[in-house]
């Protein structure tokens, strides 16, 4: 706590995570390999969920289903705390042809997520209380898993006037962001940092210097030179992060850096953390597993901002996760309609979907080859909302059930059986991945079942 930390104004600072009404689960997960590093859990267990809460964790085969509870035989498969994502685009309001609250949260559930935070770069931008209020109401009807909203830092994402941040916080804003764009004007950004003392709420930042990025469409390096496509240099990101860390330090404010992509950025954040700046950061599954070499074919599904960078950058990001400089994995799930992406690369919008593939991509490319331990990946997939002072899913008796059952052996081809998301612009499309989500329990309710899992489910009398 710094001397500048505002006095806690209880009601005004309650973040709202909203989902459609659900039926609390009564579920016995038998014979699962429960893994939750935070709870010190790593072994064969039975886990009983009653009325949406984790009621009991006992040794494998020791529990039997109470009357009315459904039994799922895990057959030794892994049960993890469900994942959370502080950075998704649900495209509502205004771009429902790409995604909406229902399809986006369905994709989240299918990826093993129990809560997501939606970005405000919609049409209109989420920058006023009426729009945020309407979104929260819509989420209460449509969302399959709890969803929170981060309104904009500046009106219309224009970078010139602050939004009514205190009122938005009062309505339950999860924080503030101009994601998709940087707050270019340092003076305006400084005011947002100062205003945080009144309203709280982490400022989540898309870091990029537009004068350096120019019309760039891919990472500036050998591949951009070969393709003749304008490049976005790594320093476009790292210089803005350095500036914003210095400002946050000066104002004793809290910032969260979104989608790190460059090794220079990891170094800047490591240095800022070392001197005590209240900064956290995230990395996406695609930046952890792919490089600009994967863009040689100019597949528009692999066009995103920040761009896929070099192999050295990718390795620095993996190392940043290992060392703790990088706090969490966030997907930056960014759906775009097929016809928007079926254009020449330089014309295509930036973004890839990611909710349904995050775990499998990281598991396949980083855990299976022994680069990162599964426990660390689970921690990073579950820590994102804790950084916003929300919750961290955990497998502990008495906690709400936020659980995901995964089959680590299952191999599947991305996109082969379609997507839950309305869009199909997935950068991992057609890749064969290992690790399949079979069942997701979010906020105490079953939010997703993989179709074939139904076969291994045995129901007690009276339950479907």
């Amino acid at each position, binding site marked *: 706590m710094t001397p500048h930390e505002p006095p806690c104004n209880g009601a005004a600072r309650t973040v709202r995570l909203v989902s459609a009404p659900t039926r609390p689960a009564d579920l016995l997960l038998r014979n699962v390999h429960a893994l939750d590093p935070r709870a010190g859990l790593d072994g064969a267990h039975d886990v009983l969920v009653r009325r949406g809460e984790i009621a009991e964790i006992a040794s494998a085969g020791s529990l039997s289903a109470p009357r009315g509870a459904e039994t799922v035989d895990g057959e030794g498969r892994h049960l993890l705390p469900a994942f959370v994502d502080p950075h998704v685009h649900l495209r509502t309001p205004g771009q429902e042809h790409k995604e909406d609250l229902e399809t986006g949260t369905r994709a989240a559930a299918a990826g093993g997520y129990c809560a997501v935070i939606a970005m405000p770069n919609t049409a209109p931008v989420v920058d006023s209380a009426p729009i945020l209020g309407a979104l929260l109401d819509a989420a209460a009807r449509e969302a399959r898993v709890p969803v929170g909203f981060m309104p904009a830092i500046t009106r219309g994402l224009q970078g010139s006037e602050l939004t009514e941040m205190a009122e938005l916080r009062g309505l339950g804003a999860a924080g503030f962001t101009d994601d998709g764009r940087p707050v270019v004007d340092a003076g305006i950004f400084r005011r947002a940092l100062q205003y945080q003392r009144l309203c709280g709420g982490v400022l989540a930042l898309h870091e990029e210097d537009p004068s350096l990025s120019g019309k760039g469409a891919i990472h500036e390096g050998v591949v951009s*030179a*070969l*393709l*003749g*496509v304008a490049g976005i*240099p790594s320093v476009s990101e790292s210089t803005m992060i350095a500036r914003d860390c210095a400002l946050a330090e000066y104002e004793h404010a809290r910032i969260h850096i979104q989608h790190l992509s460059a090794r220079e950025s990891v170094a800047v954040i490591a240095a800022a953390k070392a001197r005590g700046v209240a900064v956290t950061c995230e990395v996406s599954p695609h930046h952890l597993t792919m490089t600009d070499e994967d863009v040689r074919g*100019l597949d528009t599904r692999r066009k995103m901002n920040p761009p896929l960078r070099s192999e050295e950058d990718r390795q620095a990001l993996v190392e940043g996760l290992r060392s703790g400089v990088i706090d969490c994995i966030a997907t930056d799930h960014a759906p775009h309609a097929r016809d928007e992406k079926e254009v020449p690369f*330089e014309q295509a919008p930036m973004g890839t979907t990611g909710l349904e593939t995050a775990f499998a991509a990281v598991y396949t490319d980083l855990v299976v080859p022994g680069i990162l331990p599964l426990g660390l990946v689970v921690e990073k997939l579950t820590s994102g909302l804790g950084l916003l002072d929300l919750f961290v899913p955990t497998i502990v008796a008495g906690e709400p059930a936020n659980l995901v059952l995964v089959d680590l052996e299952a191999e599947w081809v991305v996109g082969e059986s379609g997507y839950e998301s309305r869009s199909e612009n997935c950068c991992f499309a057609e890749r064969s991945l290992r690790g399949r989500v079979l069942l997701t329990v979010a906020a105490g309710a079953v939010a997703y079942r993989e179709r074939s899992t139904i076969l291994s489910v045995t129901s007690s009398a009276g339950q479907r």
Partner: protein
Amino acid sequence: MRHLLSIEDLTRDDIERILDRAAAFEEVSHRDIKKVPALRGRTVLNLFYEASTRTRSSFELAAKRLSADVVNFAASGSSVEKGESLKDTVLTLTAHSPDAIVIRTPYAGAAALVASWTTAAIVNAGDGKHEHPTQALLDVHTLRQKLGSLEGRNIWIVGDVAHSRVARSNILAFRKMGADVTVCGPPTLIPRGIEALGCDVRYDLDDLREADVVYALRMQHERMDQHFVPSLREYAANYQINGRRLGPRQVLMHPGPVNRGVELSGEVVDSPQAVITMQVKSGVVVRMGVLYEVLAGARDERSAPQPTEPQLA
């Protein structure tokens, strides 16, 4: 070969086969009746999303001299201006069953993308700042006529390399033909990482004497608005190829159109060392060779007993 999308895709054998055929077509250009029936009944569609007089008319002449039917489709004054997407345009035009589509767009990779949407053979006539393969082929053809072989020759490409598809295709083509390539220009117009194409990088013309061939690129006026160089005057002072800098035995090339007084001085444009009009002439025969390759050549392969590649719908 089904399509000509880039020099990167070609082997030295491919380049030599196309250019040998172009040399054979050279004779046609000298006839009174400049026409052979090689592609009679075939339709070639020119789809140009960027202004082009030379390249388009060169392709048109090439197709007509091979007796193909030619349809020109320019983006201005068409459905494109009414907001039709590239894919919809290509699907619409494909309904007319063209045998080949010659396409120029301002976007890298667009020709390859179009190839995935149509059964027609695609010839890339320039995709953004990526490649302009027929320009590189006609430049190699010109040099083969002028010098015999490119093997071991030293070629300097001078100017705005960053925004030049000609530079990229030519670096690759000259390297594949055995030449050493140096690119030279203002540091602001040499893209980071260009060495990966196999060329050297210089920022001044001090060692220009090393070159057997000097290939000047067009300095586009719109680059001035983006402040890549302080002024055209300063550019010319440092990078203009003029009588003082050009050695007596060096061959001078330029893809056209020339900005006299900027990248080239008037005296060198008009000197016998300049092969600029020879390049234009090569354009027609090389494009005849390319159209023959993707239309008649492809048919020869298809009629051969090997299994054919599955065609993308």
